[in-house]
């Protein structure tokens, strides 16, 4: 990388995230000034958005080529008091917590105390949600049965397609006008809402253009003062770019990147959407501009590389908005899950890998940043050369790019009723979630703690951690005479808690649709404009809601233990086993060791355990899949944890697989840490026994020693391993290439390992930034080595 990029990158990596009150303050001013009671929420939100973009500070950093920051400067992190208004105590926690802190200065605290808190307290979405939730919902939430994604962050979870590379905001406005013309007041009772929504979209479209023009003006101003002729020319070029996009379609590579970046800033300024708004299939979108630039001589490979690197740094400048409480624990990272997709197939089904795909891999390798995240889509048509190039980067040990199965993703999407062409132009986002880019709202609503539900089942509806009855009375397990009775009881409890979760979701989704529409995001996602409907209200072409199952390994091994010892071998009674768990195995390490070592375990290609995995999957799937959502969409399942397996573990007592109380659960669909002893092929065979095609994504983490991948041949065999997993319909696999020894050293001497990046679940993060239990969990994962 050149000097400019090196400097910008250093700045981004070394600047500590801090809270900026700018957005909160401007938003509060707007709401204080605007009290027209007849104004629709959509229009009000649109005007608020415009007010923010008209008044926020414009930042153009020294040497920057791609411009625009969400806050007043890099790493300045805004807050969203309309969703969550942080208390002074919250701010104190953010400022002082050892992991993922945000600096909060005195001035910010003062602004909060005097302006933000007095205005927003009692009016936030978070408070509204907790007021509306039933007592049983709150009991389950507090017990750690499930989490709630929308209590501090707005629903988002969508990715952009290719539309902005073809259309300017001028064109979006034309589409709005057409949609308005098509409204049928004689037959459409929703005509007023639609008019208001379209009006709101028009306002936000203008707002982003205004925002871009403010950058153009600032660049011109800087250019007029600039002494260095080269920088002066750059600033003039920036001014020209920002004048042209987003109002008009981009004409070249630079404009395409800058256009996307303005759109990105628009989405993350409007609301703190849950994760992953990102350009999606970047190598596909940019390729025509890349080719054209090279052909007409306006672009070189080096210039394209530099612009991409500058673009990468912009993502790293935006930490995920600050979270507190349970939500902070379920996603304890600065990463905001912008997952750039490379490779895959084209809409016509042919292989999509091009030379830009390779160039972007170079950028990923060289930048070595935790944001944006990146992945490669591997279809059966993808050349090995591309997979091997990606593995060579993975081998350097920072957990990127992750590897996805395009053919599985397409089948998952088709099963959900989406069109083949849409499916082929989609991909995965966030951690591992499959979706149709530019046309789908695929909302993750919360994690679901399967091992905890078994704990409740084993206590006849009571949570032994609190003594509170929060589940159904499914019978005293001591009286169960068959394993089937236990499974039936477990199945009833799962159904019960899923019902509670979905009742809550229905209310929460309505709250967002009603009070916090997102006209800017709606502008970008088909078919919101055509339907005149907000993204939060079902405007997208496809609407899917997920509840993410967690702890597949722990639940499978626990049930396998119960079946094996209590019902099959009968070498311990249910009563005795429950007593062991209640005492957290104290005084009986012998039996804990038997449960750990002498019991069938998931991850070893052992039908005894793996058949139970299938049963659990079926129970979870049947409880959720196909249920209707408020947006007119459908509930689906996926299996991933971010960092919630640590939090859920804390809430769950000792389990029958020998796991001690409050230790982390297994993560994703990976086997319990250390339980897989037959190598990676056995893991893959076991994991492939889940029907991945009926999910919207699964997450498998594997740890390899660097030595195993040292040779070309080792790498090629890894590629064959992955190809086989994909042939068995596996959705995704991710690798850590690091030894436990290195990780233990890093734990002891964090100062020496500041740049050590590891794969956590669906994202990479600095190892030293992780909580200690999470660090330990990663160390305990089975290390596949050569022998």
């Amino acid at each position, binding site marked *: 990388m050149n000097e400019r990029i090196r400097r910008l990158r250093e700045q981004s990596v070394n600047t500590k995230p801090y809270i900026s009150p700018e957005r909160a303050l401007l938003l509060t001013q707007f709401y204080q000034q605007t009290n027209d009671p007849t104004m629709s929420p959509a229009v009000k939100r649109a005007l608020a958005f415009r007010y923010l973009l008209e008044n926020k500070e414009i930042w153009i950093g020294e040497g920057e080529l791609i411009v625009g920051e969400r806050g007043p400067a890099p790493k300045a992190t805004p807050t969203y008091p309309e969703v969550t208004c942080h208390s002074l105590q919250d701010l104190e926690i953010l400022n002082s917590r050892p992991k993922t802190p945000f600096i909060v200065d005195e001035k910010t605290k003062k602004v909060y105390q005097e302006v933000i808190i007095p205005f927003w307290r009692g009016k936030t979405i978070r408070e509204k949600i907790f007021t509306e939730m039933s007592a049983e919902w709150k009991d389950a939430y507090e017990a750690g049965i499930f989490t709630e994604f929308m209590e501090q962050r707005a629903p988002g979870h969508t990715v952009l397609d290719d539309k902005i590379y073809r259309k300017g905001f001028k064109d979006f406005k034309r589409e709005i006008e057409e949609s308005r013309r098509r409204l049928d007041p004689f037959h459409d009772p929703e005509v007023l809402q639609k008019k208001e929504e379209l009006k709101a979209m028009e306002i936000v479209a203008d707002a982003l253009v205004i925002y871009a023009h403010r950058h153009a003006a600032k660049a011109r101003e800087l250019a007029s003062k600039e002494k260095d002729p080269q920088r002066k020319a750059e600033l003039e070029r920036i001014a020209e770019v920002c004048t042209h996009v987003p109002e008009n379609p981009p004409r070249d590579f630079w404009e395409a990147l800058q256009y996307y970046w303005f759109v990105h800033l628009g989405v993350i300024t409007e609301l703190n959407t849950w994760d992953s708004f990102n350009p999606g299939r970047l190598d596909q979108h940019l390729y025509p501009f890349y080719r054209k630039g090279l052909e007409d001589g306006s672009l070189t490979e080096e210039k394209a590389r530099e612009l991409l690197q500058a673009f990468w740094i912009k993502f790293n400048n935006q930490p995920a908005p600050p979270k507190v409480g349970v939500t902070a624990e379920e996603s304890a990272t600065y990463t905001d899950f912008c997952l750039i997709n490379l490779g895959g197939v084209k809409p016509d089904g042919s292989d999509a890998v091009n030379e830009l795909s390779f160039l972007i891999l170079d950028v990923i390798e060289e930048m070595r940043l935790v944001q944006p995240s990146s992945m490669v889509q591997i279809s059966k048509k993808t050349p090995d050369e591309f997979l091997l190039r990606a593995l060579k980067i993975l081998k350097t040990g920072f957990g990127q790019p992750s590897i996805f199965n395009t053919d599985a993703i397409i089948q998952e999407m088709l099963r959900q009723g989406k069109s083949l062409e849409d499916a082929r132009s989609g991909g995965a986002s966030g951690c591992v979630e499959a979706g149709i880019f530019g046309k789908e709202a695929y909302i993750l609503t919360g994690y679901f703690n399967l091992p905890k539900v078994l704990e409740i089942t084993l206590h006849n509806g009571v949570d032994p951690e609190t003594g509170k009855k929060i589940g159904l009375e499914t019978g005293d397990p001591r009286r169960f005479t068959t394993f089937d009775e236990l499974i039936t009881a477990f199945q009833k409890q799962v159904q019960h808690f899923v019902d509670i979760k979905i009742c809550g979701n229905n209310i929460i989704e309505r709250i967002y649709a009603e009070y916090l529409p997102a006209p800017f995001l709606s502008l970008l996602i088909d078919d919101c404009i055509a339907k005149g409907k907000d993204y939060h209200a079902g405007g997208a072409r496809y609407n899917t809601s997920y509840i993410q199952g967690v702890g597949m390994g722990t639940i499978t091994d626990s049930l396998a233990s119960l079946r094996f010892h209590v019902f099959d071998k009968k070498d311990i009674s249910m009563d005795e086993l429950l007593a062991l768990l209640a005492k957290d195995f104290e005084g009986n390490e012998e039996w804990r060791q038997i449960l750990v070592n002498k019991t069938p375990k998931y991850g070893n290609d052992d039908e005894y355990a793996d058949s139970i995995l299938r049963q659990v999957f079926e129970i979870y799937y049947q409880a959720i899949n196909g249920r209707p959502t408020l947006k007119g969409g459908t509930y689906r399942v996926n299996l991933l944890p971010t960092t919630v397996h640590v939090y859920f573990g804390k809430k769950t007592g000792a389990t029958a697989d020998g796991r001690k109380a409050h230790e982390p659960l297994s993560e994703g669909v990976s086997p319990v840490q250390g339980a897989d002893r037959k190598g990676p092929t056995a893991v893959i065979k076991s994991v492939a026994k889940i029907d991945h095609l009926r999910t919207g994504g699964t997450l498998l983490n594997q740890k390899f020693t660097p030595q195993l991948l040292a040779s070309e041949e080792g790498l090629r065999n890894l590629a064959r391993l992955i190809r*086989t997993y994909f042939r068995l319909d596996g959705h995704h696999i991710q690798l850590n290439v690091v030894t436990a020894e290195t990780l233990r050293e890093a734990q002891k001497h964090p100062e020496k390992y500041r740049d050590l990046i590891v794969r956590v679940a669906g994202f990479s993060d600095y190892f030293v930034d992780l909580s200690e239990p999470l660090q330990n969990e990663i160390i305990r994962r089975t290390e596949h080595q050569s022998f």
Partner: protein
Amino acid sequence: MTDGIVFDIKRYALHDGPGIRTTVFFKGCPLRCLWCHNPEGQRPGPEIILRPQRCLENCHRCVEACPKLAITKTGPLPHINPALCDCCGVCAEVCPTEALEMVGRKMKPEEVMAEVMKDFPFYEESGGGVTFSGGEPLLQPDFLESLLILAKKNNLHTVVDTSGQASFSVFLRILPYVDLFLYDLKLIDPERHRSVTGQRNDLILENLKKLASLTDKIVVRIPVIPTINDDEANLRQMAAFIKSIGRVAGIELLPYHELGKDKYARVGMEYKLTTVTKPSPEEMERVASIFREANLNVSIGG
């Protein structure tokens, strides 16, 4: 079909032939190479091993379970009286921590093959298959032949990893079912060979010569053990010998490693090669160059 004694079945084996493989380790070996990294594979019958650091101090499950009353535990560790123990394996079965473990068990060829076939999709994808190693697989000829026939019925690529210390009639029996031989060669001088492996190498050299006259699907594997066989004289003799026997598919040099050292104590044996260390990449390169000079196709393995 004849049962055999197997001490391990390793999946995702990457160094025993092409692609992703499963390696089946046969128990029992006629040689006693000082550097052997699978000492638990030397003796022919099943045996019980102890990993002392895993044993739970207050646990007496093995003592209580032993039908021959061969185990006593007065201190922190159990003691097995070899005179009474018949290696039935009950103690290992009840041991919670796998401190006691049974090495080697009697298996039917079908049983072994069922385990091997679990990774079939990986073999197909990678051009891999099954490798029979040990110990010395040719010491259990009936079992080996049954397995090879089964493997071929299942369309598997087959590799046999041998020390060569076996009757040539066994080679002739298995030859039709073997896609590749990994043939270990250590030293040319018979007396030096005897002093570090316990056996002279006359049979080994003769078998290799005969085998090479029948097939070229042979990779000669040479463990490079500093001070034992890495002297120029021996290397040149080996190069000349390999050259003289006709075509072989290649030569693979395996650098000595100490990873097997810890296993010796577990099986109640002594590791005698305490002063030898792993050869450096430069050293390996020097060794390789000697074979290259002789126009032999040589690679350095891991």
